[in-house]
């Protein structure tokens, strides 16, 4: 395990940063708004 961490640390760092961004985005209410804005039915939808 330690070997993996030492060798693949750039990928782990990238995964951590991506995770941080996703977690931040998930908590931000604007993200939900952006999604729901496009999921709302349009004028012709039942």
């Amino acid at each position: 395990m330690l070997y993996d961490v030492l060798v693949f640390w750039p990928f782990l760092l990238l995964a951590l940063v991506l995770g941080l961004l996703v977690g931040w985005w998930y908590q931000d209410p604007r993200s939900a708004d952006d999604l729901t804005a496009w999921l709302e039915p349009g004028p012709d939808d039942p």
Partner: protein
Amino acid sequence: MIIHFLQIWLLVAVTFVCGCLIGAWLYSVIAESRLALAQGAVADTIGDGLDRLKSIFGIGPSWRAEHLKSVPRSLPTIAAAEPSWAGRSQSRIDRVMRLSPPPADEVVEAARWPDDLDRTQEPAFTGGDPTRIEHAETVSNDGIVPRRPPGIAAPRSGVPDNLTRIRGIGFRNETALNKIGIYHFSQIAAWTPAEVRWIGQYLAFPERIERDDWAGQAAVLAVGGDTGFEKAADRRRRRRQALHEGGSVEEGDDAGDDDEQ
């Protein structure tokens, strides 16, 4: 070998999940701290930047980036223009005004906000869901005192505007708005920040109206303009109409819609 491979991917996945948890926790902590204002400003800046990029690449509504330049949105400007900001957070507003005075042109823009309706009186129309109304009048931590926008009992000339042409308004929101007497683009275009807050809380969509700039969209639509935003149903209808005019597809045939372009 396979086990080692799986082990690496498992490690990456665990790191990613940890990052998600830390990111979500960081957001919550900052949102509760004194940095919340800066956090919102940064998020808005990034959002506006993305909107501009979308506009440049032609994948977003082109009017929005230009329109945002003329809309007073900064906290000092809103505080200067909105008397309802007076209250328990006045000291905070004073501090913001002192640290970051609004640009002169923004103050001029703020003074131009429509004031043709007498907002000092109670709205003539008082319909709506009582539970939602009670929630809508809750004062949040930032000190904005929500104010109900004036509504009308029935649409003018009996014909309401199609509010679903505004991005962020679907059938559900349109129905909710009609119930409180909002039927026309011109009404939405005239909303002040305090009224936007009231509506946002009434619809239980915090910051949604500000983010999608309903008032800006409504201002364009009220004068017969086009915001460039069309929902999937509009696109389908236009494609169907175009195909029908070309004589290649029968009316009501949706099968070819997704195949077209």
